[in-house]
């Protein structure tokens, strides 16, 4: 039975590890490969945000169940500067460090469920879920 994986995120190599773990779990649970790619891509973006803005954090990947539905939840956690304004962050294109921004609206589109909590004093936690079709 699949279990939870915790991937510490500090460098870009960790980004690759995190998304590969996501893919592995998706494959184990029998996700179709399209959804597996969506999940891996979302994980990649979340991990990148941690590396870029918080310097250090972690990604936790775990299987979840609701009734007979099976899914995966990913929690991206860091103790970084927080997102100054969550509303601003969720608008496409906003970014403090240039480039393509946080990509959070995109991540939300890729996933079935998306939750964001951020506080300048505490850090940021993004929780996403993808259900198996």
């Amino acid at each position, binding site marked *: 039975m699949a279990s939870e994986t915790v991937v510490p995120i500090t460098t870009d190599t960790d980004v690759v590890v995190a998304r590969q773990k996501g893919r592995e779990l998706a494959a184990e649970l029998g996700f179709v490969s399209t959804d597996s790619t969506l999940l891996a891509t979302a994980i990649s973006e979340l991990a990148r945000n941690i590396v870029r803005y918080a310097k250090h954090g972690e990604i936790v990947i775990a299987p979840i169940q609701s009734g007979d539905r099976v899914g995966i939840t990913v929690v991206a956690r860091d103790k970084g500067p927080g997102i100054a304004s969550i509303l601003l962050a969720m608008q496409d294109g906003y970014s403090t460090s240039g480039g393509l921004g946080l990509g959070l609206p995109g991540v939300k*589109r890729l996933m079935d469920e998306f939750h964001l909590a951020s506080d300048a004093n505490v850090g940021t936690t993004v929780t996403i879920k993808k259900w198996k079709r």
Partner: protein
Amino acid sequence: MEVPILKQGLYLIASIQAALSDVDLLHLRDALAEKVGKYRARGVIVDVTVLDVMDSFASRTLRDLAHMTRLRGAETVIVGIQPEVAFAMVQLGLTLEGVDTALDLEEGLAFLDKKTKRRTSRG
């Protein structure tokens, strides 16, 4: 891990073999830019068939690659983006705008032939 770059006539072909780290991708970008100058290449093909995830970093780096090679006189075309990867990319809003794309190596070569011929006939 270095990506092999082959020279085929006036074109350079880079086939990505496995999952690339950020650093490897940046190296590839710089290596291609350098080699375009060195060999006076007219076209560059980057084959990403093997990549199973293309995130914002990869997307941005490929765009940079295309710009850099164009500045040195070569057209770049990205080939082999997988259907699911393309799907994930557009959801994230990564459209590789301004970068030419083709289905595979064969199409990429045909595309470059057409494009570089046009330039020759104009010049």
